[in-house]
């Protein structure tokens, strides 16, 4: 019962205030329409500034919520997002800042394989993500499980994804031994 109530409070909290973003925030390279917000005060206005990372505000300037399109250069951008709230009297509050880490995933190519080949380790950069797809077991690709075919394997980290293509070819078909 106690756990149920705790879960309920957490759910209400998330519904009311949204998620709490850990600093730095992580976004995918070239992501679009990323929404950032602060708790709204009806009589306040909000001045947002986005610097670095090729970020550009698309909507919401002046309100408590904006959308941002990010650029194509990965890396950590300190204080990339700033918001200054002003109350009805025009008095500004303390600027609130958020660092942004733009994530660019890549996966190392593997294969091609034959059906009987041993498992091959999958490698993604940065490390720490997870692989998924046909024939994937943990962070390995097992051609014997996948079988013959072309497969798209996905590497996922912090909500970002990248893919690699893997091929398992038919093995050679050897005829019966002949005797001249």
């Amino acid at each position, binding site marked *: 019962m106690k756990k149920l109530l705790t879960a309920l409070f957490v759910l209400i909290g998330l519904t009311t205030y949204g998620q709490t973003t850990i600093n730095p*925030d992580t976004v995918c390279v070239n992501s679009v329409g990323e929404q950032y917000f*602060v708790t709204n005060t009806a009589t306040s206005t909000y001045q947002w500034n986005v610097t670095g990372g090729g970020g550009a505000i698309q909507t919401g300037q002046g309100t408590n919520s904006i959308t941002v399109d990010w650029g194509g250069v990965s890396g950590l951008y300190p204080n990339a997002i700033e918001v*200054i709230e002003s*109350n009805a009297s025009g008095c*500004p*509050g303390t600027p609130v800042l958020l660092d942004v880490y733009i994530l660019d995933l890549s996966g190392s190519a593997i294969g091609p394989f034959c059906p009987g080949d041993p498992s091959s380790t999958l490698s993604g950069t940065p490390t720490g993500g997870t692989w998924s797809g046909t024939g994937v077991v943990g962070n390995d690709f097992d051609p014997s499980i996948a079988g013959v075919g072309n497969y798209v394997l996905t590497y996922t980290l912090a909500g970002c994804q990248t893919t690699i293509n893997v091929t398992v070819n038919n093995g050679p078909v050897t005829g019966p031994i002949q005797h001249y």
Partner: protein
Amino acid sequence: MKKIILVILSTLIFSTAYSQCVSNQSFTLTPNGPYQPGDIVTVDYTLGAFNGININWIHAFQINLGVGWTNLTPITAPGNPIGSTGNWLWDLQNTYAGGFNFGPGWRFVNSGNAGWGTSSTGPFTMSFQVTVTQTCTADDLSISMEVFDDCITGGWSNGTCCNDPAYVIYNGNVQVTIPLTSNINHY
């Protein structure tokens, strides 16, 4: 003629240094403080009695405001019970013939002698409105009322002036609220 006779009597009897001529001052503020930017406040002020020394007549009510106030607006002028012929004039600034600077407030314009105030001893009730400026700093919101006799304004000279201190109606500062912004969240 009246003043001449009274001059002699007052010189003999009433001449007192640093005397105060005002009494029974009171006020109401609507609403009561503290105040925030944009608040509009109505001030009702009453001087219960003015008993001038040396035949000094009451001449002007000056409103002293801190820098946090704006839009000073008169609502009701003082009365002139059993006083000299004339009227109370609202003025933001006036320099009397003798060089005394007054304002803002009400000053009595005596129809018979422009340099004199009114012989009325009150009571005098008046009201005005002020607005708190839109500011982000805790500006001064003091309000006080100064009463000047025609000795101070320079129209009458018969010894010591009343020299009444300013009557404090309000002492305070703008209540400034600075927004507290939550952390930035990302959906």
